[in-house]
């Protein structure tokens, strides 16, 4: 359960900014992250925090500027078909993630056909099996996406992603476009897939309640960096980083007797083209000290399986466990 499946080290992705000379957008900056086999890791952050770019790097759809990703100890190269099919995407837009001209069967079979997995005659049986796994009948196989509901389309997208038996699913806002009732069904499907098949899932979202419901661990991103990682329960119960505290306080809570929290987060998330010096959060941080403006805090262990990047938190030293995320 706790073997590390994905090891991300020093991952950095910069984009050239058109018409701005040598300026670059630092979408992901020096990210270290371990994803454990069989876990659901939630990645949260505001828009522009780099969570989608991190996901695309994991999928091999965006080439990192520097840093490495390894899967099961092997260095990840998108050109390697075996490693490539080990990581599959589930996207937000269930309409756009299926070719409108392809039947459900053809979309689900795509990975099998593209990589010659299984005998051609057996692939249809596999499609039926996959559709069953995501709670769809085989009779939908001949339908086109326009004939399906949003929830059905997202299920088809998940079935297609599962076809090459991936080790990791990278789900980027997979439920944000769905009705709340359908959201719950899809989230339960992800939970069931992990439980029954041991699929590891990196779940990228801005929706904290989804993370709380689904994820074993959560990584919080801010302007391209991970600023806190830990077990979901622990982080939600006692967030360590001031940004995480503010984020959790700002989330709406289904309790009418609770008073609205004081507004902790003011201003906008800084531009990743010109990230603030030192700790990127210092301009918005209520407890920033001088050191925060000049020196970037490292991601340090602050408790059992918990890491945070803040100067005001003391690293826990001499822990019996090795320092891993």
């Amino acid at each position, binding site marked *: 359960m706790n073997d590390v499946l994905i090891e991300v080290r020093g991952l950095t992705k910069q984009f050239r900014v058109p018409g701005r000379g040598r300026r670059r957008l630092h979408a992901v900056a020096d990210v270290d992250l371990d994803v454990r086999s069989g876990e659901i890791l939630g990645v949260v952050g505001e828009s522009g925090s780099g969570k989608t770019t991190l996901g*695309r790097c994991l*999928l*091999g*759809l965006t080439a990192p500027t520097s840093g490495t990703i390894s899967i099961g100890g092997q260095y990840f190269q998108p050109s390697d*078909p075996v490693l*490539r*099919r080990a*990581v*599959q*995407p589930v*996207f*937000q*837009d269930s*309409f*756009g*993630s*299926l*070719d*409108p*001209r392809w039947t459900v069967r053809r*979309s689900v079979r*795509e*990975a099998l056909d*593209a*990589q010659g997995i299984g005998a051609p005659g057996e692939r249809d049986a596999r499609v039926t099996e996959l559709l069953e796994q995501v709670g769809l009948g085989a009779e939908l196989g001949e339908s086109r996406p*326009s004939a399906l509901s949003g929830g059905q389309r997202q299920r088809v*997208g998940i079935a*297609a*992603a599962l*076809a*090459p038996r991936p080790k990791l699913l990278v789900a980027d806002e997979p439920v944000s476009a769905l009705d709340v009732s359908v959201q719950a069904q899809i989230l339960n499907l992800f939970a069931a897939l992990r439980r029954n098949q041991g699929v590891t899932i990196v779940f990228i979202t801005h929706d904290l309640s989804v993370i709380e419901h689904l994820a074993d661990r959560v990584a919080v991103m801010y302007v391209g960096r991970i600023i806190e990682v830990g077990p979901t329960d622990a982080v939600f119960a006692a967030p360590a980083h001031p940004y995480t505290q503010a984020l959790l306080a700002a989330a709406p809570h289904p309790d009418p007797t609770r008073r609205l929290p004081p507004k902790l987060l003011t201003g906008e998330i800084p531009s990743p083209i010109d990230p603030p010096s030192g700790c990127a959060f210092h301009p918005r941080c209520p407890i920033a000290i001088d050191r925060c403006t000049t020196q970037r805090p490292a991601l340090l262990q602050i408790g059992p399986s918990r890491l945070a990047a803040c100067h005001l938190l003391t690293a826990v030293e001499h822990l019996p466990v090795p320092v891993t995320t």
Partner: protein
Amino acid sequence: MTTSGLTRDRRLIVGVTILGVLVLAAVLAPLIAPHDPESIDSARLLRGPSLSHLFGADALGRDVFSRVLFAFRISLVVSAGSVGLALLIGVPLGLLAGYSGGWVDLVLMRPVDMILVLPALLLAISLISVLGTGSSITLIAIAVIFFPILARVMRSSAQVVTTLPFVDSSRARGMGGFGIATRHVLPNALGPVVVQAAILMGFSMQIEAALSYLGLGTQPPTPSLGLMLFEGRDTLVQAPWAEIFPGLAIAITVLAFNLVGDGLRRHVNQHSSAA
């Protein structure tokens, strides 16, 4: 895809019906034509429309109806051939440029843009002055004018489709670039190209007529709509029918192609907005 929207579009139906009748007439021209389009008869010079000569006779006594039928046949072959050839060059070019982007796009599209800035007729005339005259040369010259237009449409359409998530999914599934371009991008990007091709068919008809009128297209005695306009202009006052009917044939055909193009455009737009 659904065809119900297509069959309910009135303009599209009218356009397709007109084209159907015209194409049928062109195909069956040898059977329908009451007279030999090239036979000269001094006994019926400039004779007006009658039952035996529906559209009258021209200055050489040739039957205008038969000539329009045969001329239309050639015009149709030149239009379809030139647009077909332009599609054959423009679609792969635009697909490759739009899907690949980056320097491939730059290298492929710059020469295309250079052709695009030249005035169409001027380009055709200079090509003809190099290659010679005749229907097949006209066809090639028109294809050269058209393929940059189709390549541009294909490119921009392919660019849009390439950004859709299913292309990323397909890449993650292990599909190669060629497979993605031909199986995902091409079918989804082709709609606007088909619309443009239908409209270019009518335009091609006009260019062919213009070139023939100038003596650079189809050569006499083969009948051509443009050539007939040229030949009829001296007797315009005495025998307007030698001028009116070929002119009408051009106008109606262009109209029909535009109706079809517009109808298809609405259909394509509806579907792309839904998707």
